[in-house]
Each structure stands twice: as structure tokens, then as C-alpha cells.
């Protein structure tokens, strides 16, 4: 029975080969699973929080991707949790540039999302135009969403109409005198035109407008556990 004897080494070799194959397969499958494990919960929370913070209807933005400097500075952990319940139960931090706005728990090593934002601030600029003739026009040097007009015409002169780019924004047949707020279009340069009964001396009209100053920054949202 020489054949039965020869089967024993063949069996040993076969077992060896099969167990090697099993080992290699396990290593490959483990690698595939390790690559797929990327803390999806943290990632979802980080992406969602960053997306909602910069969205147009977020409480901290003026419009999409433009943060209001004053409101952002007031941001704290409880207001963030209330406004963005997606991070409830997570450790997270929100940074703007290299300044930490909010940090809850320990978020080092979590999933980080970075967003490019502008930080906007409006500051009033006063303009005292000089006019020649009764049809006075003044072009605002920078775009602004609104303007405050202070009109004090000299005695005997009446200002009836104020137009912004041809659109009537103020009209009083008895004459305008005082401070008026006018709404302007953000996407166009505005020319204000005043219709006065006589030439307006310098200083009788003051325009205060609110140009937006923006600085770029990176909003960094980190969420962990």
C-alpha cells in the first residue's frame, strides 16, 4: 500500500496551503473594513454643522457664507446646541481662523470640516455732498443696503422728492425736513437724486451709508464622539 502512505505528506501540504490562504484572506478583509471605518457619525455631524452654520438662513450669517462679525463673537456653547441640534451629545469645537469660538469637551482627533467664509461688518460713513443747481444728485462711493438721509433745507426751499436710481424712495408735497431711512439695492451702485425748489447750500443734506467691510476667514468645525 504505497499510495496510502504518499497521501500523508500531501495532506500536510494541503492543510498548510489552505491555512495560509485563510490567513491572507482575513488580513485582506480586515484591511478593507479598517479603510471603511471613518467614524461616520462624527463626519455626518461635522459636515451638517458646517453646512448649517454657513447657510443663508443660519442665525450667524448675513447671507450665504458671509458671517456677521458681531453675532459670531457672541456665539457660545448653549446657543450653538440650541440652534444646531445636530451636535447634541457630541464633543465639538468651532474655530474662526485661529480663534476658538466655542469648544465643548475634547474634540482633538475628531473629524474636521473647513469652510471658506467672509466675516462682514457694517460701519456708518457720513457724506456731505455739495450741490450746484436745484436738481442735486449724489452717488454713493460704495454699495450699501440702506442709507440715512438728513435733509435740512434753508428757509424758503423745499425738497419734495428723493430718488434712488430713478426710483422714488421719499416723497412729501409739503417738503422733506428731517432724517429719513431709505432702502437701497445691494447689487447696484446707487445715485440719489433730490428734487429741490432752489439750489441747496452745502451742509443742508447729509447722507450716512453703511458699506460692508469683509475679511476672509476659514471656519473650522471639529466633531468628536
Amino acid at each position: 500500500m504505497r499510495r496510502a502512505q504518499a497521501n500523508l505528506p500531501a495532506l500536510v501540504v494541503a492543510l498548510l496551503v489552505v491555512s495560509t490562504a485563510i490567513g491572507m484572506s482575513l488580513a485582506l478583509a480586515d484591511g478593507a473594513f479598517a479603510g471603511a471605518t471613518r467614524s461616520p457619525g462624527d463626519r455626518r455631524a461635522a459636515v451638517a454643522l458646517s453646512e448649517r452654520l454657513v447657510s443663508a438662513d443660519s442665525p450667524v450669517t448675513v447671507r450665504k457664507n458671509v458671517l456677521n462679525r458681531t453675532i459670531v463673537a457672541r456665539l457660545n456653547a448653549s446657543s450653538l446646541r440650541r440652534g444646531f441640534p445636530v451636535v447634541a451629545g457630541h464633543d465639538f469645537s468651532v474655530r474662526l481662523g485661529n480663534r476658538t469660538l466655542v469648544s465643548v469637551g475634547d474634540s482633538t482627533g475628531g473629524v474636521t470640516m473647513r469652510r471658506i467664509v467672509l466675516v462682514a461688518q457694517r460701519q456708518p460713513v457720513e457724506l456731505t455732498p455739495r450741490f450746484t443747481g436745484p436738481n442735486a444728485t449724489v452717488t454713493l462711493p460704495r454699495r450699501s443696503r440702506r442709507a440715512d438721509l438728513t435733509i435740512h433745507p434753508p428757509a424758503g426751499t423745499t425738497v419734495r422728492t428723493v430718488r434712488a436710481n430713478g426710483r422714488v424712495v421719499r416723497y412729501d408735497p409739503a417738503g422733506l425736513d428731517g432724517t429719513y431711512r431709505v432702502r437701497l439695492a445691494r447689487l447696484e451702485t446707487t445715485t440719489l437724486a433730490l428734487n429741490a425748489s432752489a439750489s441747496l447750500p452745502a451742509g443742508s443734506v447729509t447722507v450716512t451709508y453703511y458699506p460692508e467691510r469683509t475679511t476672509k476667514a476659514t471656519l473650522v468645525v471639529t466633531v468628536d464622539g
Partner: protein
Amino acid sequence: MGRAQLSTTVVEAAVGILLIFAVTTGFVLAVPHATDGTTQLDAYARDAATVLANEPPRHHGATRLDEVTASNASFVRERAALRRRVDRILPDNLLFRIRTPYGDVGYARPAGVPVGVVRVATAHGEVTIWVWYV
């Protein structure tokens, strides 16, 4: 007979290995791969487009994107300023390329690296922004 016949055990082992690798292939191919970071890159591209679409123009038009795509002349006039502006907006570890109806601005797009992309419609045509890590 001592003929060179393959032992049944070895044949069985070979079949077994085939089965094992079949299962392994299932694991390796079916498990989702880690994304190559395009979520973040897409977010960068989208943010850059939003910022450009909201900025006042340098000369005419409603926004900066509108100005750049308005005509060939205004594109040629604005391309250097656009490149500088996008360079300033994007973080330092990113490069970009912008395609407008009148031409491209930015760096040459490399092959084989993850790229974030966004397409925005303007009144004069589509603007595409690609960003990638340096």
C-alpha cells in the same frame, strides 16, 4: 501504479483556496472605500463660488462672477484680478482652475489627484471651479 497522479487532497485544497478567495474578493470589493477627501474639496469649491457670486464687481455688473463672464473684453481685463482674489480666498494648501465661457484662469489641473468641483450658472454661461490640494 506509481503514475504522477495529483493527490485528491491537494486538488481539494486548491478548490478550497478558490472558494476562500472568492469570499475575500466579496469583502474587498463590496465594502465602501474611504472617500478620497472630495467632500472637503467640493465644499471649498462651492464656498469659493458663493463668495465670488456675492462680491461686488470691480467695475460693472451685479457681482464679480457676472462681471468676469460678461464679455471677452471684461474677462481679459479682470482675469488677473480674479486670479489674485481666488488665491486670497482659498486656503494656502489649495490650487484652483476656473473655466468661464471666455477662457480659463488658474493653474493646470493635474491628473490622478482628488479634485473638488462646482458649476455655477451665470447669465452669460456656466462657470466651473476646480480645486485640489497642492
